[in-house]
């Protein structure tokens, strides 16, 4: 049993009395690629929002390595090594692909540091490597706003790779992608999961099957089942929830 990099315990958040996430326990191990599935409104995105600091939990704790993320600000959580990709690709459309990647480089993010930042060989090598990986090397000089939906998804993954996080939180990374792009993304995620932990929210079961080590099923803010893809798919309660919809 390897150690947990992320421990979410008894996590609860309610919006006007509605418990979007309800006393949830959720653990992610080092080097694990975990998929979180569940019907709409199961609390998947809210869970990621709380881990990365976007939403404040009403109760419970979130520990990442030795840090208690519960009271940290978004940028502080990012700096200790948690990267977040949003459901709608969030890239800086007015900047080029190169600049999007450059801005994500995890050095000199203070005021003076960024004012006197100089591009060095490390940065360029890293951008070279990442842009190759996310299939965008040809379009480095293009404005991010000109990219296709699928390319924006890749760019956002690339921005996370620049940050070199130990924990990656990806919300529907293949939404709006063609079948071929999905396959490319699956092999990309498999490649980058070496040496870091990844949590992926996804609806596309074929895609989940391609990448998941372990699957967590959420339903109405609670954990319904957890296990390998086969175990989860064989689970009667999971069938009920999905067939019921």
């Amino acid at each position, binding site marked *: 049993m390897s150690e947990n990099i992320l421990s979410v315990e008894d996590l609860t958040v309610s919006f006007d009395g509605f418990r979007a996430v309800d006393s949830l326990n959720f653990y992610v191990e080092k080097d694990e690629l975990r998929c979180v599935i569940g019907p709409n409104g199961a609390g998947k995105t809210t869970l990621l929002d709380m881990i*990365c*600091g*976007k939403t404040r939990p009403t109760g419970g704790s979130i520990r990442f390595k030795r840090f208690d993320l519960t009271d940290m*600000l*978004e*940028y502080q959580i*990012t*700096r200790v090594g948690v*990267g*977040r990709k*949003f459901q709608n690709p*969030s*890239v*800086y*459309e*007015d*900047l080029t692909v190169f*600049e999007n990647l*450059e*801005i*994500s480089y*995890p050095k*000199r*993010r*203070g*005021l003076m540091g*960024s*004012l*006197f*930042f100089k*591009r060095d060989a490390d940065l*360029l090598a890293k*951008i*070279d490597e990442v842009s190759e990986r996310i299939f965008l*090397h*040809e*379009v*480095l*000089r293009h404005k991010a706003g000109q990219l296709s939906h699928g390319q924006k998804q890749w760019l956002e993954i690339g*921005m996370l790779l620049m*940050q070199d996080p130990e924990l990656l939180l990806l919300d529907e990374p293949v939404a709006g992608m063609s079948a071929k792009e999905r396959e490319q993304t699956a092999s990309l995620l498999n490649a980058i999961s070496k040496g870091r932990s990844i949590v992926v929210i996804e609806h596309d079961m074929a895609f989940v099957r391609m990448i998941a080590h372990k699957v967590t099923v959420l339903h109405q803010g609670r954990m319904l089942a957890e296990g390998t893809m086969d175990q989860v798919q064989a689970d009667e309660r999971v069938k009920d929830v999905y067939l019921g919809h």
Partner: protein
Amino acid sequence: MAAAIAPVSRGFLQRYAIVILAVVLLAVLPLSLDIFRLGLAAKYLSLAFCAVGIVLIWGYGGILSLGQGVFFGLGSYMMAMFLKLESTGADTSAQALSSFFGSNLPDFMVWNSVEQLPWWWEPFHHVWFTIPAILILPPVVAFVLSYLNFRRRIGDVYFSIITLAFSAILAIVIIGQQGVTGGVNGITDFRTFMGINLDPDNVKIAMYYITCVLLLVCVLIGTFILRSRLGKVLVAIRDREDRVRFSGYDPALFKAFIFAVAALFSSIGGAMFTLQVGLASPSLVGITPSIEMVIYAAVGGRLSLVGAVYGAMLVGAAKTFFSENFVEFWLYLIGGLFIVIVMFLPHGLAGLLDKLPGAKRHRLAALPGPEPDAAGQAAGERPAARLAGEVGGGK
């Protein structure tokens, strides 16, 4: 192609915009204007400092400040306090009234029966306090006030309203506290700066040049900031502030910083204004002038630091021209000018450049002789350019 024979290309104007501005300010205007007109130009250029700052905070930071008059006013009043105390100390005829009453206070304090110089006037006896204060105080005030707001994630519109309130408050305080601020008349009637008489033409011309140089330095500082990583972060914040937090930056800090830079520019402009116009007035602090400064930036092009300077000069010159020639309704003409520019030139004067013919490709083919950045341009257009090559070429 017609585009290929355009006499000046857009790229040329953009690349050398600051050089062209320097030539206009330092050579064309002084050679073509008489001393009175040059004085007017100096006045508009003092206000251009604010417009340059507004391009930084509004065009690139997405923060619309309707309170730059506050920082202009702080710089202007601090300089005026120093000048007033200096002229009060010197026994000139202007202080006859004070001496008549056996007082060594500034004249307006005497009229208002103020018997002792307020403690916060005292340090402005010294130039070594005044100048650092002009450079430090407004940015610090701007940083602290805006950081508190940005940290609490006050929305952009609400922040605009807060800045508007600040400019109104400062103007009201100045007018209300007549005894220590000079009230609605402002602080005026001073002739010397550190013993130098400000009236002779050659001093005025020197002041004009100092203003121009300072303004160009501000434009250069702004350019440096925008080209740095900080500038990119700023654009990212403007477009997607929420996302920037997840890139590991604290947006509040960056926004407060750029706001402080704009405040510094405004304060310098205010000080230069007072030195040249001989006045610090609440009419340059309140809401109307603050909004006018935004108009300068909008007319010049809110994404163009250089454009802001032209915007300030153009609007200033138009004000003068219209008010001299159409005394009755010149304000309507200014309003009309603003509407026309906003409607037809959403990117201001700088947007005119985009209407010039001459796409990059044509320019490369058309310009005779070596194109200084041809290699960089080519690299930019070559889609598969390797980064290693671009270190030398592009940057």
